[in-house]
């Protein structure tokens, strides 16, 4: 379940970044007079190389990742647009049959029925076990789950960067944060998740809080290690001597090095957060049944899967979830390859 949080690709990118940061000048390079050479001026005066342009170029060569990226963008937009499209039923509404007045439970996908208000309605993906439209429920659930995933990723990134920068840049704090890290890093994520969800009221906020509690630690650790390496480089020393404010040194000189890893971490964090939501729903501590989420949909589908006719209620949400996960995985992978300076040129 936590494969993505601790992913091999992430480590590869971090290491190759480390290598390029740690590169020392050769001895003979260190003690050389810089002589004026007209040809040299011409050569180094203009470099066509831009890190982000190269990254973008290498990334766009990966057709699969590009297609999935577009797919994800369309999906995100669609989850927000879907309720406003014509002919949609609110996901929460229980639909009743016009003739019997009873809820339309477990209507198979694609079947057209007449609702109590006299309109004919086609359940594209069928209805669920209490008569709600599964199609709109899946989109509402995707919206909730993606929101949780993205929110946690953002909190992790913000908190991780903040703590990481303080930890790496302010020497006095190093001891304190290192000790804190040694304690916090030992706490299993699942335990924190279970405990917080058990104690607090179930809800979107609780889940985001519970997942964010431990997620930022890895990010902070990584940023701290990198910042310690580049903090005292000559160009930073020069910046400081020239009176550049610290925040500018951090934002202009330090963080741009780390953006690729930060982005990869976030991309991999989103699907695993969605996975955590499914897990926490499974053990009965998830969102209340009134909130549609992929975890809730899968959990309901699970209880119905023994009868083959109702299995669609498990399969459709699972497919959506899998597509999201695979897309983020593939995009993240392609991105980490593209962001690795070794693969540029």
């Amino acid at each position, binding site marked *: 379940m936590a494969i993505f949080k601790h992913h091999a690709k992430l*480590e590869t990118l971090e290491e190759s970044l480390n290598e390029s940061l740690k590169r020392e000048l050769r001895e003979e390079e260190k003690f050389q007079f810089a002589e004026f050479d007209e040809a040299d001026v011409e050569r180094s005066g203009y470099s066509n190389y831009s890190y982000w342009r190269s990254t973008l170029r290498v990334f766009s060569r990966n057709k699969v990742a590009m297609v999935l990226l577009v797919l994800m963008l369309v999906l995100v937009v669609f989850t927000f647009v879907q309720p406003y499209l014509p002919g949609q039923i609110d996901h929460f509404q229980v639909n009743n049959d016009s003739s019997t007045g009873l809820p339309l439970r477990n209507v198979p996908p694609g079947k057209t029925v007449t609702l109590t208000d006299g309109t004919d309605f086609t359940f594209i993906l069928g209805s669920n076990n209490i008569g709600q439209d599964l199609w709109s429920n899946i989109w509402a659930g995707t919206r909730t789950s993606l929101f949780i995933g993205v929110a946690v990723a953002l909190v992790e990134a913000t908190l991780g960067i903040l703590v990481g920068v303080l930890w790496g840049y302010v020497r006095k704090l190093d001891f304190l944060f290192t000790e804190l890290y040694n304690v916090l890093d030992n706490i299993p994520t699942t335990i924190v998740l279970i405990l917080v969800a058990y104690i607090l009221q179930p809800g979107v906020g609780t889940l985001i809080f519970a997942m964010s509690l431990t997620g930022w630690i890895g990010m902070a650790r990584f940023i701290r290690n990198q910042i310690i390496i580049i903090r005292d480089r000559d160009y930073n020393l020069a910046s400081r001597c020239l009176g550049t404010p610290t925040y500018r040194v951090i934002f202009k000189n330090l963080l741009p090095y780390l953006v690729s890893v930060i982005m990869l971490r976030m991309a991999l964090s989103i699907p695993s957060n969605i996975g955590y939501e499914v897990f926490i729903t499974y053990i009965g*501590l998830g969102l209340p049944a009134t909130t549609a989420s992929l975890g809730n949909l899968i959990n309901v589908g699970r209880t119905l899967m023994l009868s083959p006719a109702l299995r669609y209620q498990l399969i459709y949400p699972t497919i959506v979830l899998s597509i999201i996960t695979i897309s983020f995985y593939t995009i993240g992978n392609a991105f980490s390859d593209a962001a690795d300076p070794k693969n540029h040129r």
Partner: protein
Amino acid sequence: MLRYISKRFLRSILTLVIILSVVFILLRQMPIEGYFPNYDKMTKSAIENGIKQLGLDQPMYVQLFRFFRDLLKGDLGISRVYRNNVAVTEILAPKIPISLKLGSLALLLSLVLGLPMGVLMARYKGRFFDHAGTVFIVFVEAVPAAVYYLFIQLYGTQYLGIKMLFDESDWMSWILPVFSMSLGNIAYYAMWVRRYMVDEINKDYVLLARIKGMKSSSIMFKHVFRNAFVPMAQYLPTSFLNTVIGSIYIESLYSIPGMGGLLVDVIKRQDNTMVQAIVLLFATVGIIGLILGDLMMVLLDPRISFGTKAGNR
């Protein structure tokens, strides 16, 4: 070495004490229903008496002190809801061996399948086997475990004629749970072995070995795999100890009377003492796993010095 171990050990104990205190204090904020099996039918005075009897009216630090004192004696408290008035240790004792047996089998299976898979993926990097393996890894991660476990159970029992529920005396009924449990770890080990193998293959000593005329297979196993396995060793103790906890999904799916299913049960029934005890167990196991992992790295790789924290990634 000894100094490193003892320092690491002391720090872990400190961590454990902090975690336990936090868990204890947090769980005390829970509604008191969790201490009485038939709370709704109790009178006010009976509830007050019960609270007094349990010592819940005392200040937090007294309660905390008592908790740690009892803990040192090996007393985890008494279950109130799950099984009324039975010591928690008594409930847990028969469950641990089952989870342990099941989990070690699953771990063994995942090593036996996962390591060779990773090696083959690295060996045929960029070719069919590599892609097939990647598809498998992505599949295992992308489809929620709760769903594919269900399908394994469904089709496994349908087509292989295996019993749906777990029965300790029937070895056939072990197959599906062990297989399901190992899937995630197979993917995990394969992914990491491949990653470290690919790293090692590109190193100069492999080139030298090739120039010397060593056979490809013996380079792979004598040099590359052994080097690649060192960073993996770090995860082994955690994986093994996690088997004590068992798989929450699997155990509740197959009604295995182990630890994982128990946690879901006691959470649903809000038995605070039991939740506390199980969380304690999980946290302890997690921390011991990390120490052992660091120690294994140090033992296997002489290049890692004792002073620096292992697992510096």
